[in-house]
């Protein structure tokens, strides 16, 4: 008995130890064994604690497993776990969680059924099921980020034709794929929101013909929709600027959309819409005398003469107080004034008076530009205006000469409105009018493919000129005007490259000889610059001019090269890059190119004298006085004779210092005296040496 008691005590001690250590599962087991024999209320209490704590532990395990199952999208298992946990622990939130999961599970089932319906082609049934699922479980889906279900629901509602409901669901979708984007756009288009539809479809990179056709139709309707809104907003007469601004923004949005490649008509409609919107806005700005805003809106629009006049007038008003937009004023003024020709009688009903108005308007703009304070823009505007005036005068003269009524337009206006070829045809057919080839080619050059580059060059923006020239496709044989403009731009840019020390400057002169042939005045100007200026980069200019001479050995280039050869020769000689002989050859070459080159002539003269002087000094040094005397007699240079006497005098003094016998000194002096006498027998040095000889004799 005592042994049995000991065994129970040991069991209880073991149970207590486990209990205290928090191992309630094993403690419960031991307490149970003990209770079977002792049936003690105290042990029962312990057992109750153990059961409660064990349930809590199991409940926690089940909850963790349930959460894991949600993560793994196994809603059934998760539901099972949470239900078991709820039976073990008294947590109110578990009831809510179970309800939520049951709802989700039901939604998922409906969703699966909907998918099956869609797979079997029953879109209406799929849509109904999706709608049911969506209606009942949207909030929960959103909580769980089940956007895929939401998207599918919206897509099948679209397929079933229930666009408002589909749009309601699409509004809640955060992450669109191509399928959702297409259907969202489709639903929007079907409900009349064409701009919204295009916003969705714009990012769909799909070349399918059927889709492109739909996209084209929707875009055309978007353009039409914005146009009608804009027109309705302005025709009531009570339009507010904010309304117009809002509609203008829509027009901008439409114009940013890309139409199908082959739809030229649609592209034109989009362009027309933007122009229309700009003009509507410009009208409001004009009425408010906000001329800068007017110019900003219509600056790049050339589609209508009235528009150009509007731009010109706005620029003119701005230039009254500020130096801005002078270039635009210069660019469009002549075109604006040109509209008077087409509107004869509008102002005065009298062509003569119209001409007076035009002339006065030209003078007014000219004065405005000239009166502006000095700036790069002013100079550019002035140059541009002078060109436009000259061209306009030419065309007026041609018009009078030919008896034709010509609609004159500026190069830019012609380019923007597709009239360049027409203008070139007029120029070609009136070639005889122009005073020379350069005049003819330059006028045509402005209307050629390189016309805007030429204008940029002439208004001082050489970088833009080259840039826009480079962007031209010059593969096809260019016409004479384009060729001329291109050659002139390359020539001027080449000179700039040379001056700035670019090593590749010669790349720009390959066809300059053709330019010089067509425009001898440019050649003469270049030649004059070479003749007149003391310049840096002398050697580079010599290289360039030598190259030009090899291509075109004309008189002006020969003169320029002659001067440059001589000047460069000095530089090279001073840098020990030329010997005396090479230098003389260079100077002679310069004179062969231009025998009248005074600079080279003088250079050659002094070179020859220096050469004679060198020889004279050498001969005298060797004691060959007779030969030196003959050289002094024969020389054309008085300097040689002077040097001869100076040397002779020095030598006469030095002879006495020689360590030789007086007889030999006397002989040397006699030889020197005779040589001096050959050159000038009355020279003082003759008597002086004579006296020295006598002294030695005594």
């Amino acid at each position, binding site marked *: 008995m005592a042994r049995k008691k000991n065994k129970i005590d040991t069991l209880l001690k073991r149970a207590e130890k486990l209990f205290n250590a928090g191992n309630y599962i094993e403690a419960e087991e031991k307490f149970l064994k003990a209770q079977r024999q002792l049936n003690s209320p105290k042990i029962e209490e312990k057992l109750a604690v153990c059961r409660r704590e064990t349930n809590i532990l199991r409940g926690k395990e089940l909850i963790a497993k349930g959460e894991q199952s949600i993560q793994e999208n196994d809603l059934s298992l998760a539901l099972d776990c949470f239900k078991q946990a709820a039976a073990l622990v008294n947590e109110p939130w578990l009831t809510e969680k179970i309800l939520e999961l049951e709802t989700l599970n039901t939604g998922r089932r409906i969703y699966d059924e909907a998918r099956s319906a869609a797979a079997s082609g029953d879109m209406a049934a799929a849509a109904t099921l999706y709608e049911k699922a969506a209606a009942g479980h949207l909030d929960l889906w959103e909580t769980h980020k089940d956007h895929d279900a939401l998207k599918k629901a919206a897509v099948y509602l679209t397929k079933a034709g229930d666009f408002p409901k589909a749009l309601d669901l699409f509004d809640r979708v955060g992450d669109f794929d191509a399928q959702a984007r297409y259907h969202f756009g489709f639903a929007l288009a079907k409900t009349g929101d064409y701009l919204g539809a295009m916003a969705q479809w714009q990012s769909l990179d799909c070349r399918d013909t059927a889709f492109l056709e739909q996209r084209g139709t929707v875009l055309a309707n978007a353009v039409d929709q914005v146009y009608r809104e804009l027109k309705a907003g302005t025709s009531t007469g009570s339009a507010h600027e904010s309304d117009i601004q809002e509609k203008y923004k829509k027009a901008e949005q439409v114009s940013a959309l890309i139409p199908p490649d082959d739809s030229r008509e649609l592209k034109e409609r989009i362009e027309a819409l933007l*122009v*229309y919107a700009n003009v509507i806005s410009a009208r409001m700005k004009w009425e408010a005398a906000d001329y800068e805003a007017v110019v900003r809106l219509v600056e790049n629009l050339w589609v209508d003469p009235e528009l150009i006049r509007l731009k010109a007038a706005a620029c003119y008003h701005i230039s009254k107080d500020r130096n801005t937009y002078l270039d635009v004023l210069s660019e469009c003024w002549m075109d604006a004034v040109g509209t008077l020709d087409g509107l004869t009688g509008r*102002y005065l009903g009298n062509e003569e008076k119209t001409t007076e108005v035009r002339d006065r308007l030209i003078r007014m703009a000219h004065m405005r530009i000239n009166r502006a304070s000095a700036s790069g823009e002013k100079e550019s505007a002035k140059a541009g205006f002078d060109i436009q005036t000259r061209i306009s005068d030419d065309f007026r003269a041609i018009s009078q000469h030919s008896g034709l009524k010509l609609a004159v337009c500026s190069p830019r206006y012609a380019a923007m409105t597709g009239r360049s070829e027409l203008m070139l045809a007029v120029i070609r057919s009136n070639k005889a009018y122009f005073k020379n080839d350069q005049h003819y080619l330059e006028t045509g050059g402005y209307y050629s493919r390189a016309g805007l580059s030429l204008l940029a060059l002439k208004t001082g923006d050489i970088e833009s000129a080259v840039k826009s020239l480079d962007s031209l496709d010059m593969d096809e044989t260019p016409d004479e005007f384009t060729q001329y403009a291109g050659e002139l731009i390359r020539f001027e840019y080449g000179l700039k490259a040379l001056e700035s020390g670019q090593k590749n400057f010669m790349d720009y002169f390959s066809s300059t000889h053709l330019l010089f042939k067509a425009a001898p005045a440019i050649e003469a100007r270049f030649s004059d610059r070479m003749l007149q200026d003391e310049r840096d980069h002398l050697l580079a200019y010599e290289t360039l001019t030598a190259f030009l001479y090899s291509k075109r050995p004309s008189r002006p280039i020969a003169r320029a090269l002659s001067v440059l050869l001589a000047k460069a020769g000095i530089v090279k000689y001073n840098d020990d890059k030329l010997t005396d002989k090479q230098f003389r050859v260079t100077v002679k070459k310069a004179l062969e190119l231009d025998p009248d080159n005074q600079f080279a002539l003088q250079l050659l003269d002094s070179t020859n004298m220096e050469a004679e002087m060198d020889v004279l000094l050498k001969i005298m040094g060797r004691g060959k006085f007779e030969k030196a005397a003959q050289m002094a007699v024969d020389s054309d240079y008085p300097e040689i004779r002077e040097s001869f006497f100076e040397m002779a005098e020095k030598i006469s003094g030095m002879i006495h210092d020689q360590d030789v016998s007086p007889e030999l000194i006397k002989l040397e002096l006699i030889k020197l005296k005779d040589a001096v006498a050959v050159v000038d027998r009355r020279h003082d040095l003759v008597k002086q040496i004579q006296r020295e000889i006598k002294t030695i004799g005594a």
Partner: protein
Amino acid sequence: MAANPYYILDIGKDASNQEIIRAAALQMRQKRFCAKEIAQAQKMLLDPVSRGCQEFLYHFDFKGLEERLCRPLEAKPPEFDAPCLTLFDNETHDS
């Protein structure tokens, strides 16, 4: 706006010389602008060449311009009655 002679005299583009003179007299009485400005405006508009220039600078036929610009936009495009396409159902075309 002060330099706009039409604005100063508060007259329209087609005002006759008589209306210009009458408007100038009225403006002198109302003193909205100084006498010099009113006199200049009257002078500008009574001289035909000067008036042509002012009209060039201040009067635009916005209505006519807008009508011309509207023309290419007037034709109604075809209605969008195309069927819903299925080509996006199995592919990804997002750019």
